[in-house]
């Protein structure tokens, strides 16, 4: 049995090795780095498993500095994997494993791009993400946070065309130059508040004490944290970079960006609000309000998209809202003493985080397959792919149905938990619940637009395409299987999530959900998802196939034999959107304002960027820095 200290470092080593694939040629480099990353990702799953069983706590002392505590924090890398971290690490492991495997074939289709940049930064992105989840120190969190932004920015820029560069630029400037300033401010404040102790334990202890005395500053801190971390998660008014950056990246990266990297923001927010801050109703309300705003903005915008990946990117924003809303609501309900519903909401939030990682990366992978097969992302042009790409279509259908919250897929379970906890609370939160419920129909509408436009409606031009290679469709099918599994057998995840929350000290017990009559758990409820599954998903197609068709004929175009035509993607729900034209015009105004604001920030930050580095020096500088850092860590372990 390898000692835990080493287990934690195995992925680190593997990812660094993967990043060394930079020395190879073009596609080969990407393939090699993907393969090694895949192995690294599987070790992540192992780490997460062990971490969930019992907390792992490892300290790498780089050198022993007994001086000021801030220096000692920097000198020590404190890796601590608690249950919350291990959930996120596990997610990282699974999703990146799928993405890496997917990338092996997918990358062949790309004709040009910065291959080496990709093969170098991709493993490092995963690595920094991993380290971010496991580090137990605010300063190191900040360091990894910055590095993650840096490396993930490089992979966004991979294609090197105008879209990619501007997407990466927006991504970098907004999340880094804008939000990171806030994070730095926040961390500084915390350090002052906590007396320069940056370990999570110290921070949470000190902040709880401080908060009761200085509510105003506490709220300020909360808002700063929300904006700072939330910007990376795609929180509503600060989301503008997301739909530009995510579609620009190669698809397996988009899947990671949407499935995981936004989750770093969620993780940081959870860490902050569930651990550092006391469960205060006002904070919860603030978070929940931002969550609702994010839901509305993301969903309504997604309804109007023509580009498949852009649509999914907006959908990510909306789904982040569905994660933040129950989180805020949970904190709020905890704060006002409705612990049962509150705990339920928090579990729902965590559950939805997991679900979203699966179905969103699945959907991005299918959109990548479409891109791979047809070379287009434009929902106006593609269409009717379900015949040529049946596996992809099946996977996409599962993904689409689960994001739409169709029982018994996973999206339904977490959404059902959200409404079940929010609606009966008899507070303003229930209005948020109503909005979330209403917006879930919009979710269904836009995701059905994505699915039907890509796979069912007749294509505008005849497409001669084939199913994607087996490796790619296999990853999609696996992700789809997860979507089904998490929906059909939810109690495992509910247990995991509630355990994680319990370990954070919340008065939730998995058993306590049984007090609620019939949570969607087979052993406690009359509602058996498996029954619905059997009935709808198996019986219906079986019945349909049993009935069969007697005759296949031309499409009935009211008697005039002309080829069938397809709806433009812009035409979908045009009247619905016109019905909400007020919303769109308001949001247009707001967007214009945000654009002015961001351009001002851009101007500032771009001068800052210009002075500090051009791309190459940035890359080398970062690489050298990282390699040195890692060696130092390893050295600390050995000594």
């Amino acid at each position, binding site marked *: 049995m390898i000692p835990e200290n080493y287990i934690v470092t195995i992925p680190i080593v593997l990812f660094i090795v993967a990043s060394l694939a930079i020395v190879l040629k073009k596609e080969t480099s990407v393939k090699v780095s993907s393969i090694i990353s895949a192995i690294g990702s599987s070790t992540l799953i192992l780490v997460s498993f062990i971490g969930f069983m019992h907390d792992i706590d490892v300290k790498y002392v780089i050198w022993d500095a007994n001086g000021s505590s801030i220096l000692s924090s920097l000198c020590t890398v404190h890796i601590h994997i608690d249950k919350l971290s291990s959930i996120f690490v596990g997610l990282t492991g699974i999703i990146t494993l799928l993405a890496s495997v997917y990338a092996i074939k997918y990358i062949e289709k790309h004709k040009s791009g910065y291959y080496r940049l990709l093969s170098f930064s991709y493993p490092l992105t995963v690595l920094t993400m991993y380290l971010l989840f496991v580090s137990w120190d605010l300063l190191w969190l900040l360091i990894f946070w910055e590095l993650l932004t840096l490396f993930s920015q490089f992979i966004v820029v991979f294609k090197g065309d105008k879209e990619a560069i501007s997407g990466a630029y927006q991504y970098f400037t907004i999340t880094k130059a804008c939000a990171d300033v806030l994070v730095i401010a926040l961390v500084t404040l915390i350090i002052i508040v906590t007396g320069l102790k940056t370990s999570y334990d110290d921070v949470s202890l000190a902040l709880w004490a401080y908060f009761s005395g200085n509510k105003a500053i506490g709220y300020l801190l909360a808002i700063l944290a929300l904006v700072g971390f939330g910007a990376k998660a795609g929180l509503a008014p600060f989301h503008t970079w997301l739909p530009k950056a995510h579609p620009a990246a190669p698809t397996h990266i988009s899947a990671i960006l949407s499935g995981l990297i936004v989750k770093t923001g969620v993780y940081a927010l959870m860490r902050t609000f569930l651990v550092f801050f006391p469960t205060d109703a006002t904070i919860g309300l603030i978070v929940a309000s931002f969550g609702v705003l994010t839901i509305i903005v993301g969903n309504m915008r997604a309804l109007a998209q023509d580009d498949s990946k852009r649509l999914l990117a907006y959908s990510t924003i909306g789904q982040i809202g569905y994660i933040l809303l129950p989180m805020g609501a949970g904190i709020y309900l905890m704060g006002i003493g409705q612990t049962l519903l509150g705990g339920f909401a928090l579990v729902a939030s965590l559950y939805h985080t997991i679900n979203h990682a699966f179905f969103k990366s699945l959907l991005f992978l299918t959109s990548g397959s479409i891109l791979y097969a047809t070379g287009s992302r434009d929902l106006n042009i593609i269409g*009717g792919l*379900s*015949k040529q790409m049946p596996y992809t*279509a099946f996977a996409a*259908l599962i993904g689409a149905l689960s994001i*739409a*919250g169709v*029982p018994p897929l996973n999206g*339904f379970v977490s959404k*059902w938990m959200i*409404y*079940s906890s929010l609606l*009966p609370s008899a*507070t303003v939160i*229930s*209005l948020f619940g*109503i909005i979330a*419920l*209403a917006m879930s*129909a919009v979710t*269904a*509408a836009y995701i*059905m637009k994505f*699915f*039907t436009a890509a796979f*069912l409606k*007749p294509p505008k031009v005849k497409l001669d395409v084939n199913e994607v290679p087996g490796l790619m469709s296999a990853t999609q099918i696996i992700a789809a299987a997860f979507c089904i599994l998490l929906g059909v057998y939810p109690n495992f995840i509910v247990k995991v999530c509630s355990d994680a929350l319990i370990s954070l000290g919340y008065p939730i017990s998995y058993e306590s959900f049984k007090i*609620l*009559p*019939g949570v969607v758990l087979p052993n406690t*409820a*009359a*509602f058996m998802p498996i029954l619905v599954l059997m*009935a*709808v998903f198996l*019986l*219906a*197609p079986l*019945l*349909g*196939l049993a*009935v*069969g*068709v*007697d*005759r*296949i*004929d*031309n*499409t*009935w175009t009211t008697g005039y034999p002309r080829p*069938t*035509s*397809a*709806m433009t993607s812009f*035409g979908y*729900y045009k*009247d619905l959107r*016109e*019905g909400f034209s007020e919303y769109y015009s308001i949001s247009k105004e707001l967007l214009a304002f945000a654009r002015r604001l961001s351009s001002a920030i851009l101007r500032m930050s771009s001068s800052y960027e210009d002075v500090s580095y051009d791309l190459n020096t940035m890359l080398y500088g970062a690489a050298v820095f990282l390699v040195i850092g890692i060696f130092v860590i390893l050295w600390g372990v050995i000594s």
Partner: protein
Amino acid sequence: MNAIIAVIVNVIFALLYAPLIDGVERKIKARVQRRKGPPIQQTWYDILKLFKKEEIMPKDATKSIFVSAPFMAFLSVLIAYLFVPTILPGALYFYGDIIVVIYLLAFSSIVLFLGAFSSGNPYAQVGANREMSLAVMEEILLAFIVGSLAVLNRSLMLNRMFPLEIKVSSIILLAFYLVVMYIASARVPFDIAEAEPEIAEGPFIEYSGKYLAMCKYTIFLKRILLTSLFLNFVLPENVLWRTIGYVIGVVIIPVILAMIEAHMGRMRIDQAVRFMKRLSVIGIFAWVISLFGW
């Protein structure tokens, strides 16, 4: 065990009754148009006839989705009957079952949307689009009802809401629910998705035989489901009175709705969306009142 027997009886009742009441509605509509109209079993005859006819599939269609969509829609509405009692009180109740009912209803719209798009017919595309737009608006209105009910009863369990306490808020909610029920049961002026003179039955244009029968059956079942939900909200708990009330109500309400339907013109989809958007203001109002517990 009792609940299971009740559920079986209820489902069978709904299956038999839903087409029959459509026949009654046709008769009523004929009467207000001063016609004689077909016999009340006509809808049953129609469904049986459709079952005997051949099934045709357009050659552009995606078979797997095209053939399974009508059955999926049908079964999802049928499953919703597990949670909503009809003639006998008693169903599978659990916490949050009303959400499941709403999602199942939405799911039937979604699969019909999928089925319509899988046929590749341009009319089906337009019709499905309308269907989805309406479903979104319906869901927004239903969300307000469910939210307000949850606030009012501090619970999301249907049997906790049967019957509703008589309060200002519950009366407003019931009135609001009646309007939403009318809209959701795809009656004129809200039969925009199927609008026969405009887009020739829209989503169902390519369906024939058993598939068409299933699509139609789904709509009938959905109407009775929504009516039963309403009756459950108002009927007393006493089994005898409840049953009597239910039998009367399940005839009277569709008859009244049919009379209203007969005197309406069809709305345009954008008008309908705006109308429903305006209705949602009442939803907010109802929510506020129920928050105060009036």
